[in-house]
């Protein structure tokens, strides 16, 4: 379109201002009838946010001790040493026990290196993310309280066979109850 000049440009400007305001108001008015995209976390939602997150979301780490062979690869590969595994060996029966498996989620940077190294699918990112605590020590998740024998490695097992997050969810709730002094 050719640039107008002089008196034509003057009226063209005035007309454009009026016309674009009219069209703009029509656009914004149509938005009054469209669904807002806001998700009203945490209370006014249809289903928990954890269920709406995409697969591959890196939430709080979860360990399935039924699968853990105690190889310590996750602990060794962790760049910030937030996974602490203690293994003790019964000298008579040559049986190995996991005496403690702690993950400090206050330190964890959710890089996912531990899950890549775990050949047995024992450590995973769950979709849990709501970890709030009054003390830093409450953010350390203890996956076992008493020594338990390591799992036997099975080669033909599926990587994951149960929904993730159940263990962590339970552990986090324990944290909250401790905080409230129960």
């Amino acid at each position: 379109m050719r640039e107008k000049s002089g008196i034509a440009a003057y009226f063209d400007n005035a007309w454009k201002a009026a016309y674009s305001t009219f069209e703009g108001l029509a656009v914004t008015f149509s938005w009054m009838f469209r669904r807002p995209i806001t998700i009203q976390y945490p209370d006014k939602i249809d289903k928990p946010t954890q269920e709406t997150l995409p697969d591959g979301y890196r939430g709080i780490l979860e360990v399935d001790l039924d699968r853990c062979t105690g190889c310590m690869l996750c602990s060794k590969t962790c760049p910030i040493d937030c996974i602490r595994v203690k293994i003790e060996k019964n000298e008579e029966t040559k049986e190995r026990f996991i005496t403690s498996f702690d993950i400090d989620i206050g330190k964890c940077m959710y890089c996912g290196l531990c899950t890549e190294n775990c050949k047995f699918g024992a450590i995973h990112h769950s979709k849990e993310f709501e970890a709030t605590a009054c003390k830093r020590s409450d953010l350390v998740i203890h996956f076992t309280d008493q020594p338990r024998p390591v799992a036997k490695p099975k080669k033909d097992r599926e990587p994951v066979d149960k929904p993730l997050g159940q263990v962590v969810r339970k552990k986090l709730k324990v944290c909250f109850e401790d905080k409230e002094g129960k």
Partner: protein
Amino acid sequence: MDRWDGGDMKELAEWVIRDLFSKNPDTWQYTWAIYLAGMALAAVICLGFVAVFAGPVTWVERRTAGRIMSRIGPNRVGPQGVLQWLADGIKNLLKEDLIPDDADKPLFRLAPYLVFSGMFGTFVVLPFGANLIAADLDIGVLYLMAVTTLVVVGLLTAGWASNSKWALYGGIRSAAQLVSYEVPIAFALLVVVISTGSLSTQAIIKAQGGWPWQWFVAKNPFTFIAFFLLLTSAMAEGNRIPFDLPEAESELVAGYNTEYSGMRFLFFLFEEWANLWIMGAITTLCFLGGWQIPGVSPEKISASSGWTFVGWQLLSFAIFAAKVSWIVFIVIQARWTLPRLRVDQLMSTCWKYLVPMTLVCIAGVLFMDLYIVQGGITDKIIRWIMTLLGAAVIVLFFLRARYNYKMDKDKYPGLRNEKMWYPPYRMP
């Protein structure tokens, strides 16, 4: 006992003296006390009304803004967030009242009250209904123009007294902007004054009628244009976006109120939102027939008595409030539609476009009034054409809005498996 058929508070006070005390208002020694009581009553009623309007309209504005931006807006305090304004007010009341060390302290303290009284003074002549007006001044429109100037003084005082660069820039800009835009407002009001032959706000309304074709907006093409020019200038006068240069949060932090906090800050915000009503009321009374009830003449209202009289008053107030709310909604919507103007654009809009156009409107209205007989056949034809034009603009607006909605409707389910239809009355 005589019936009260007065127009404003003064006549109500005289009626009280005459009929309740059986005294002559001109000679009774306590007349001043009744007048004073009438003034206080009018002030309290108007202040209560402003407070109750300016508060919830902030909620309306934020909800509207939310929906336009595909958000929800405040919906937590009270049912659907309607008490959000109370929460904000209480929060601001409890905040510390900070005054900068280098500020000009008396002026700093004074400025919010200047701004507030400049805004509140207009309520003297703004009618609310057929006989609901604080004072029906003969120079109503002139008084309106004069008293709003106090706002400029207040804003400039606030900017100067803060002793801050941002505040000073904001104050200077507000002075430049508000003084400039008073010119097109005065000219646009002059169009109405010429058509009426009176400066009194009630006389302007009584010169119009209840039906749309009796309004000044439909009187002739020049008043039709003057209506939009007045609305634009009033938005600039009220510091609304797209003419939000004194506050310009992207450039000037918050403009003239940068250094203010707590209750004093609240006074500025209060003035801004109460201005919405003033804006809407001025445009309504000048161009949209004010409180006129369709099919009921003002004489019939003042001739009625008892509860019928009260009923007419309430109905006229409801009609006036509905028209004002419509204007207020358009102004709110324009805020969230249009980008802000630059300073030079603002000035050229005023001096190059609005002022000459309003002058042309004045000339046109003078011409039309000279050569077209009121109530004649030409007058009727012009009024009908203008009414149909106005209706066509409104219908076209809704068609365009519908088109915009339909354009995106089919794409929507791809994002989420819900329907896009979500009207404003559905509150999330």
